[in-house]
């Protein structure tokens, strides 16, 4: 058992070794986007190149600075320097030059050097903070992402890690934590935007001793990857947030709920939990107080609906992830019928900074009703795709054009797909909408998980909507028939329209089905399942009409080929072939 001061002392010493020691410190971005760009090959090559030259250095895998377009980023801090030099798009072949020129000889190699970060300018490269992709960010939940190694708990502690927990345990107490969370006006970042402080306060009076905190990192939304990025870049922030939630609500256990198959986030979170147990930050008597808390990773199979809070509880129990009826609400009867609070990764990741810096500091960021920052994942036809944490209240246009660099190739922006597959699409007139919960809702969109997919003028709306509807049909859990059957019908209709075989009454049928699904489904998957088509009909009705009346796509798409999993079955040859009655009679 260590006290916070002992831990902090060790951590500061280690941080001093890293930043002011006599060995270079090399950090490589290996978050999932870095992984896809070849980050792990680069870090292996760095180790072998350094070994061949007999250079001693600290080499760490870190998360992401948000600049996914420039991955793999190699970040070198030389002894005696106060600034880090960043190299972008590094290939294994570039490494000998970088090591020979910069680490051995102290000259800046030309083509891959990207920017410097720190107080001391480096000749020939700009300051990273003057680049809008980094400079416009205000990083709260992702403050450590890309700067510290997720595998080293001491690097986190040296950067104010677990200070908020120490403050909560020994200075301010559980009630004040909840008061601060309420005063900060933090709203849940999972999509619904429910005030977090209020949610936590519901569980305080629930009977114990066993109560659960669940952290939702299912994140099945295509186009969103910020939860996984937080887990991969800085898992200890999440653990500290869960500890704060557990302490203030009197919970005994925590679950980090991650989708199976995303190895990076899973491995790093498991490693972080292990380290926290070793140092007595988790387990019995956290940091020597009388509060005990356990956290474990819970994995789920591929199911989008598992991200819904009651379905998540079913999945943790090991069953099929189908939503439950409410009430009883999770705060009364959740996982194994015990009181449960479920928060998104981002929501919990804000908690340590709110407790440490006070609610006033946090509510000063963003807008009055939506405080704090928004973590936007920009993908699609955009110059600089990445994960950008910006203050709430920026307009979508600012985020896309200034931070994201606009649509490349001289093309114009045609559509935006926000908030995951259920969020629907927006037209270019929505660029003035502010990113906050209320303005986005008023514009008919949801910010949801933070995914912003940009489509340029060549993107066929009907084609994209077909993908979204296919996704919704594929991922319907099947519990409520309006969703299960309605999605299948909607997909059949969309497939028909996209194949230029639509019938005149199709759009009316869509509307009717959508209404039924909204009324008759338990969870948001069915309730919002019609959203993609509804929003497309609002903004791009002419394209649908052209498909129906003139049998052509205004973007010039002629191919009707479409690849989707066999479990979706619109128009599929397979489905037509199957004749269930005959199969039964042959038994």
């Amino acid at each position: 058992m260590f006290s916070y001061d002992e831990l902090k002392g060790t951590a500061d010493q280690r941080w001093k070794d890293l930043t002011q020691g006599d060995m270079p410190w090399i950090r490589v971005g290996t978050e999932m986007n870095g992984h896809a760009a070849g980050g792990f090959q680069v870090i292996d090559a760095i180790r072998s190149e350094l070994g061949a030259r007999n250079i001693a250095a600290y080499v760490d895998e870190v998360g992401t600075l948000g600049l996914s377009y420039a991955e793999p980023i190699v970040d070198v801090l030389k002894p005696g320097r106060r600034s880090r030099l960043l190299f972008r798009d590094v290939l294994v072949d570039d490494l000998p030059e970088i090591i020979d020129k910069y680490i051995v000889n102290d000259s800046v190699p030309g083509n891959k050097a990207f920017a410097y970060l720190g107080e001391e300018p480096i000749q020939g490269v700009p300051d990273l903070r003057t680049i809008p992709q980094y400079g416009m960010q205000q990083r709260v939940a992702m403050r450590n992402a890309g700067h510290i190694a997720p595998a080293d708990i001491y690097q986190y502690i040296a950067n104010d890690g677990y200070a908020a927990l120490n403050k909560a345990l020994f200075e301010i107490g559980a009630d004040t934590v909840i008061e601060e969370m309420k005063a900060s006006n933090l709203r849940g970042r999972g999509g619904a935007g429910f005030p977090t402080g209020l949610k936590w306060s519901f569980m305080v009076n629930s009977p114990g001793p066993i109560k659960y905190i669940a952290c939702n990192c299912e994140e099945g939304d295509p186009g969103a990857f910020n939860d996984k990025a937080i887990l991969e870049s800085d898992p200890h922030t999440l653990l500290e947030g869960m500890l704060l939630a557990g302490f203030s609500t009197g919970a005994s256990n925590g679950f980090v709920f991650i989708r199976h198959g995303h190895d990076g986030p899973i491995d790093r979170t498991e490693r972080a939990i292990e380290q926290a147990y070793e140092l007595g930050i988790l387990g019995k008597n956290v940091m020597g107080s009388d509060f005990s808390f356990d956290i474990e990773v819970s994995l789920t199979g591929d199911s989008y609906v598992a991200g819904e809070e009651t379905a998540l509880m079913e999945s943790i129990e090991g069953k099929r992830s189908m939503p439950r009826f409410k009430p009883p609400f999770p705060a009364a009867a959740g996982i194994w019928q015990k009181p449960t609070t479920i928060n998104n990764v981002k929501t919990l990741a804000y908690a340590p900074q709110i407790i440490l810096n006070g609610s006033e500091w946090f509510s000063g960021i963003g807008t009055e009703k939506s405080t704090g920052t928004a973590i936007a994942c920009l993908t699609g036809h955009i110059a600089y795709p990445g994960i950008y944490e910006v203050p709430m209240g920026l307009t979508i246009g600012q985020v896309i054009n200034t931070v994201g660099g606009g649509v490349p190739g001289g093309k114009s922006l045609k559509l935006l797909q926000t908030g995951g597959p259920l969020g629907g699409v927006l037209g270019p007139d929505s660029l003035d909408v502010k990113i906050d919960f209320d303005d986005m809702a008023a514009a008919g969109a949801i910010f949801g998980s933070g995914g912003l997919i940009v489509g340029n003028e060549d993107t066929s709306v009907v084609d994209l909507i077909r993908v979204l509807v296919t996704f919704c049909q594929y991922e319907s859990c099947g519990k409520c028939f309006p969703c299960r059957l309605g999605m299948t019908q909607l997909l059949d209709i969309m497939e028909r329209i996209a194949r230029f075989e639509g019938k005149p009454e199709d759009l009316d049928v869509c509307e009717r089905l959508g209404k039924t699904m909204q009324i008759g489904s338990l969870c948001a998957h069915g309730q919002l399942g019609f959203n993609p088509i509804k929003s497309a009909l609002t903004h791009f009705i002419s394209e649908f009409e052209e498909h129906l009346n003139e049998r052509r796509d205004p973007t010039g798409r002629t191919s009707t080929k479409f690849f989707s999993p066999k479990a979706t079955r619109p128009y599929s040859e397979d489905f037509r072939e199957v004749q269930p009655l005959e199969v039964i009679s042959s038994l």
Partner: protein
Amino acid sequence: MCQLERCRRTVCVLCFVKNFAIPGARDLTVANEDLRDRIRQAIKRQERPTVTVLSSLLATQDEFGYIPREAIEEIAVYTGASTNDVWGVASFYKNFQFTEPNEHVIEICWGPSCHIMGAPEIIEEAAEVLGIEGEGDSVDGKGTLRYNTCLGACARAPVISIDHQLYGRMTAKKAVEKIKSL
């Protein structure tokens, strides 16, 4: 893959009934002790405080790359659930496969980000080079093609994954080269 040629869905109730519910049609409790030992070890090896049907299935999938029939029984015995319950969970989640995959598993994302960046061409050409139509196993036993709804690296779209190694900013040509070099 379903046992009946005509119905090519992954899990089909009718085939399940035909294969398992009728005595003697195909015995689930085949004596295959080696396989069963490996399954039992895989289930026991999960070092987590909460062991459920789902976590045992995931452990089996990690070990074998698919869920053998015997695993359904072993998991039912281990967790105290019925084989029906285990089947219910196994057939619900889309990542569980019931036939052994080929040597290399190629996953291609078909989500909206990857779709508008050109995933359909990649899927088409990858399937062609493997000699299959859409999802499935190639005949030569080299590759298995699977679709994935999100591989988690959308900023590098389109993304494919070969044996859990992600590759971003793919084109059909690059993907085909990678598959050919396997």
